[in-house]
Structure formats: structure tokens, C-alpha cells
């Protein structure tokens, strides 16, 4: 799944890319287990064909998009993004996809559509941990309309030049590089446009720990740990110093204006 060089500002960091082995074996995808190694072991059961993404809610042209149609909806670009997990580790991953805005423009949101909700597949037959009480299934994430329309927000189908491995959210996922990783919903089956802020999975589980915005922010700590630093996976092994976490994960120039005037301590 090749992608052309992207013209979007901030689309390709020059930092050292995380090894494919690490990016595909150290994952959070709770539908397949809560250990980092679980998704790589268990996600082979996920069936990514046929796959349909239903677009509904406050749009002029709702509809069902087969995965093959989505793949052809816009030209594939390569985006090399930093990924910062809320747990305090990070990677650099080359994704393939196109700006989510391409799909959004196609379905023509109504004027009262303020938020976009992403729903992950919740199939207990192929996802062994759906039904565990860790989270309320299905996994739901969401963005404000302007966040969803931002050119950096990626609808992704591949990584490292290949089709997404199941454990990384095949066949289609969102990647929002300036937010903590859990905001980037995987294996999406539904995209819904709403007027109200969607109730997101981690926010429902622990509202005081995981806000709707969850922008990467070194100055706002998680209630249980500091967010000032991060461990870059695969960097110099055991003795590597942690890195300083950057505001908006280093995408402040591109996305800072989305939050102008907002109290980011309150809207964590």
C-alpha cells in the first residue's frame, strides 16, 4: 500500500522511525486483551474483508462505504507521525492514508454537526475481550468538527508501506497525532456526526483521568503520573534517557490555533 509524499504541513517528521517489529507487537487494543503483547497474539481472528463503514447522523449524504471504495476515495499519502500514548511512551510511525476531511467533505455535514464520533467493531466472536468489563463496548472515540477537519487528522489504511496489521486497527482507523493514542480509534465500523459531544470510551471509564480532548500536554499531568516526559520505544534500550514531551506532541504550530483561548487544564 504505497503512499505519495504528503504536502500537508507537519506530515512527515524526520525523526527515526520505530522498528516495525516494535510497532506491531507493543499495542493497546483492548478488544484483544489488555497486555501489550495480547493484540499481536490474538488479533489474527479479526476479519477485515468484507468491511463496511457506515456514515450516519447529521450529514446530507449518509451511506455505507465498502472498504475498497474508501481505499479509492482519495490518493494515499505517507504521513510519518509521532505517536504519544497516554501511558508515557511514544513511537514514530509511517502511516498510509488520506486526510479524514476528504471523506467528511464527501458526505456533506449539516450546519448543526459539531462533533464526529468513531465506533470500533465490537464482535465477541472475533474479539475475545469484548465482554470483559474493562471498558464499555463498543469502543467509541470522538473529535470536534474542526479537529476532524484538520488536514493532519488521518484516515489510515496502512503503515510502513503495507496494509494495516490487525493489531494496529485494520482495515481502517483514525490517527490524530497531537492527541494521546487512545483518541485514534481503530477498526472503525461507524462514523457518526452529532451535535453533542460523544460519550467516549475512556472518558466514560474514568472521566477525571481521560478528558474528551486529551491533547498531548506536558504541563497537564495525568492524575496518577506526570506527562512531562516519555519513553521512546526502541531508543537505545534499557539505559535510554526519557524525552521531554512536546506541547501537542510537537504539532503546536499546526493545531495550536484550534484551542486558542481554551483553558487546557480544564479541557484536558
Amino acid at each position, binding site marked *: 500500500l504505497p503512499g505519495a509524499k504528503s504536502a500537508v504541513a507537519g506530515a512527515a517528521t524526520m525523526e527515526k522511525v520505530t522498528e516495525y517489529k516494535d510497532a506491531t507487537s507493543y499495542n493497546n487494543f483492548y478488544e484483544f486483551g*489488555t497486555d501489550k503483547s495480547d493484540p499481536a497474539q490474538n488479533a489474527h481472528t479479526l476479519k477485515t474483508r468484507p468491511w463496511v463503514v457506515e456514515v450516519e447522523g447529521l450529514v446530507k449524504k449518509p451511506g455505507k462505504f465498502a472498504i475498497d471504495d474508501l481505499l479509492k476515495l482519495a490518493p494515499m499519502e505517507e504521513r510519518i507521525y509521532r505517536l504519544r500514548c497516554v501511558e508515557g*511512551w511514544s513511537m514514530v510511525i509511517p502511516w498510509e492514508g488520506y486526510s479524514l476531511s476528504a471523506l467528511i467533505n464527501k458526505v456533506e455535514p449539516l450546519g448543526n454537526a459539531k462533533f464526529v464520533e468513531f465506533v470500533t467493531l465490537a464482535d465477541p466472536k472475533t474479539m475475545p475481550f469484548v465482554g470483559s468489563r*474493562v471498558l464499555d463496548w463498543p469502543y467509541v472515540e470522538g473529535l470536534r468538527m474542526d479537529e476532524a477537519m484538520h488536514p493532519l487528522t488521518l484516515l489510515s489504511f496502512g503503515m510502513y508501506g503495507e496494509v494495516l496489521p490487525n493489531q494496529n486497527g485494520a482495515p481502517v482507523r483514525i490517527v490524530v497525532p497531537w492527541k494521546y493514542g487512545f483518541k485514534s480509534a481503530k477498526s472503525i465500523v461507524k462514523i457518526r456526526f452529532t451535535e453533542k459531544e460523544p460519550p467516549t470510551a475512556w472518558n466514560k471509564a474514568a472521566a477525571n483521568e481521560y478528558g474528551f480532548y486529551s491533547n498531548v500536554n506536558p504541563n497537564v499531568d495525568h492524575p496518577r503520573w*506526570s506527562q512531562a516526559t516519555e*519513553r521512546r520505544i526502541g531508543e537505545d534500550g*534499557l539505559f535510554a534517557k*526519557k524525552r521531554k514531551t512536546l506541547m501537542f506532541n510537537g504539532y503546536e504550530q499546526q493545531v495550536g490555533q484550534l484551542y486558542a483561548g481554551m483553558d487546557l487544564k480544564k479541557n484536558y
Partner: protein
Amino acid sequence: MVTTAARRVRRPLWLHPAAKPLLFTLSLLPFAWLLYGAIADKLGANPAEHLIRSLGDWTLRFLCLTLAVTPVRTVLKQPALARFRRMLGLFTFFYVALHLVAYSWFDMGLDFGDIAKDIAKRPFILVGFAAFLLMTPLAATSFNRAIRALGAPRWQALHRAIYAVAVLGILHFFWMRAGKHNFAEVAVYAAILAVLLGWRVWHRLRRPGRVPQGAQRA
């Protein structure tokens, strides 16, 4: 001849002269395995996390083993099993000390200001650190001369702190996993420790007239 042979057959395995060196070697295996993994870079994508968590797991396991000695020797009527208790207790301390060193070094970069802040900020770190502090005097008074110097009743009273360590340890683990609502493993350790501590309560209540077992031994 016949009586000697019969005695030899009846002699339990744990009285064999090799039993202690064997247990010592077995207890070092997790450490050796992790050390090998660290050197060979075989600890996965996040070696620091793997090392810290594995050392924590082994601390809990050795804590369970240590606390199992008294119930097992009483239930099986094998008082000689007590000879392994000190070694198991010291290995618990060995792994908890490595757990703390690994956290301080690989997670906090040996920045003691950051470590102090982290202990204050995160209740589960505080609880874990408190458990470590409680274990330190126990490890420091584990040799025979310390027992004699303290006198057995006082030594015994001091070493009951291990029950508090067990509670703090499981709370540490529970809180650490609470973020992910992932309590399956916590429940296993909590159940084992509950049985081991519960047995002590039950054992004492059952024989109200008798002096506590430890004091009796002195």
C-alpha cells in the same frame, strides 16, 4: 541396617543437605533470566517496563512463598520447613530492592528529586515505597545475632510487619492495575494472600487458650 534404611526413606526431601542450596539456586533463576534478557536485549519493545514489572511480580511471588511456610509446615506437621523461611524472606527483599532500583534507574533516570515528587504524586508508588521501607528492618534483622540481640518476642513482633507488607504490596499492585480496570492477576495474588493471612487468624482463634505459635518456639 534395616532401621537406618527405613529412616532414610522416611526422611523428608527438605531435610536433605542439598535442599537449601537448591532452593537458593532456584530463587536466583528469575534474576538470571532477566539479567540475560537485559544483556541480550530480549525484553521486548519496552525493556524498562518489562524489567520493572517482572521484578515486582517476583517480589509478590516470593512474598506469597514466604508467608506460605508457616501454614504449610503446620498443616503438614513438618516443622522443619521453617528452615527455608528466612531464605525466602530475604529473596523477597532481594527482588523488591531490585524492583526499586530498576524503577529509580530505568524509569526515573536516578533523578532523586523526580523520584521524591513521584512518590508524593502517585499513591501506588507511595504505597509500594512504604512496603519497601517496612521490609528493610526485617531484612536487616534476619540473622541469628539480631534475633538474640532483640530477644525473640520483640523480634517476632517486629517481623509481624510482613503482614502489613502483604497488604501494602497487594494494594500497590491493585492501584497500578486500576487504571486499566484489569484486576484478574491482582485477584489471584489477593486470594492467595487472603488465604495465607486468613489461615493465621483462623488458627489463632481456634486455639484461644494457647500461646501464639511463634512465642512458643522461642
